């Protein structure tokens, strides 16, 4: 069972990569992969400099790390949902994939992981621009690498779990399902401290930010990559507590994802709408 899931994951990752990249040549694909995220980062940079009058500041460092890792959020989480939507609505292959002898969830996770790999190039380019052009003081002491690696792996797992929750909902959503991944992405952009500390949010919204694993993931990446004493989304928590909260919330998200995915899939099969294309 595990071996089959791993094989499915690997093949789905390869398939996802092909779907994403084989529409053009590698250079154009690379430009395409980094242009949007880099554009998003530069918007924040110019917003910062317009207000700061050209001077640097710690908020700029906060922006750059958040903007660098945001493509992974978008690609990994939305990748799972897009895979389901594309197969159902666009390529109309969902019935063939679903009836093949593979775990369908592993297939979706693999497709999402392929997009996360695409997002990684944007992350690396943004960090490079941060170091070389914006002089963001990235630090990478050896003793912080395990912390960063643990946070990174947990973060990707959390993102894929959120993507599976979304897929569970999309099984049952018709009509405007294409817009759901974007809607969730925009909501997370607002509440997860992607580009501003969650302490800026209204009091009624901040508790929501504190139960989403992505908030802790972005915070952990900032704590791992930037020097101590900078702007923080969760100023009252230590580094270990942030990582522990990330682990706990990722595990919770995985459990919720398993339940929502299974419930959505079962209900869609009962209603006979698993492969019902709803138009776009």
């Amino acid at each position: 069972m595990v071996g089959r899931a791993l094989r499915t994951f690997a093949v789905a990752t390869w398939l996802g990569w092909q779907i994403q990249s084989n529409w053009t040549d590698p250079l154009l694909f690379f430009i395409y992969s980094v242009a949007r995220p880099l554009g998003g980062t530069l918007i924040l940079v110019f917003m910062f400099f317009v207000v700061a009058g050209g001077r640097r500041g710690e908020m700029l460092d906060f922006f750059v790390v958040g903007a660098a890792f945001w493509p992974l959020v978008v690609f990994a989480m939305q990748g799972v949902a897009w895979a389901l939507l594309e197969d159902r609505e666009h390529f109309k292959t969902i019935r063939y994939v679903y009836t093949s002898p593979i775990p369908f969830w592993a297939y979706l996770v693999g497709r999402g992981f392929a997009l996360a790999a695409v997002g990684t190039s944007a992350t690396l380019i943004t960090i490079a621009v941060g170091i070389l052009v914006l002089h963001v003081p990235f630090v990478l002491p050896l003793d912080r690498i395990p912390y960063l690696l643990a946070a990174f792996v947990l973060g990707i797992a959390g993102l894929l779990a959120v993507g599976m929750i979304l897929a569970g909902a999309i099984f049952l959503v018709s009509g405007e399902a294409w817009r759901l991944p974007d809607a969730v992405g925009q909501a997370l952009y607002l509440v997860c401290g992607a580009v501003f500390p969650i302490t800026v949010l209204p009091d009624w919204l901040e508790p929501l930010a504190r139960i989403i694993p992505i908030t802790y993931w972005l915070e952990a990446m900032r704590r791992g990559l930037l020097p101590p004493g900078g702007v923080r989304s969760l100023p009252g928590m230590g580094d270990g507590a942030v990582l522990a909260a990330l682990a706990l919330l990722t595990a919770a998200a995985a459990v919720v994802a398993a339940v929502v995915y299974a419930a959505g899939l079962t209900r869609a099969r009962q209603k006979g709408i698993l492969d019902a294309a709803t138009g776009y």
Partner: protein
Amino acid sequence: MTTSTMPLPAAAPLRRTWYAVKGRSYPRTVGGLREPSWIFYDIALPLLGVAAFVYVYRALGAPPHFTGYVIMGGATIAFWLNVMWLMAAQFYWEKHQGNLELYMMAPCGLVAILLGMAFGGLLATTLRAAVVIAAGVFLFNMDFTVSSWPLFLLLFALGLVALYGLGMFFSSLFLLWGREAWHTVQLLQEPVYLVSGFYFPVRALGPWVGMAASVIPITLALDGLRQVMFPAVHPGLLPLAWEVAGLAALAVLFTLLALWMLQFMERLAKQEGRLSFRW
């Protein structure tokens, strides 16, 4: 039994165009009301993105009029996305649904179809932009004073004509393209938001970058509207009269260019056999 067929009377060209415009705008107006979930996605969704950028300026301790910049940018995004997704890239979706061939066979021409898309989409888009501005006023206390309503309306109208002309121009490219269309529209989002100054004054990019970006009609329209709405504080890219003249020139240029390109690309797509090429 034999049946006699009587040819339908030919409608006058203008009337035919009007029928086509009305017919293509129908699914986006009347048809849209049958699936009201778009109201949530088209109104709540952009508000979330706009709110995020408002909070960015608040985290930076920016003066209040920066909130106005974000709100205006957020409202304008509605028009850009409408033109790019529901006009320029629409022919790509029409290929998938098998409608494009029907459009080509209909005796109205593609321009009437595109005008129908534009008018149909304009209603929802204007509503979306209005709600973003209303939310800016009521939720984020956006403060603005329109210094001249005639100038505001002129800039808005010229900007729309130029923008939809650009949309028609792009749609001609998508007659030829397959999957590239979707990716190209994706590519024309954040980079365009950056160079057109959706969230900050475009002048911050420098005068030459700002001038180069003015080839996108939304750059001049947005800068002009901000000059009219925040006259005391907004650092304009060009004097207002120049921006009005520039927008008028772009409106004429893109409309003519679109008409020529549609004919050219239609012929090319037929010659290369890519008109119904789905992938």
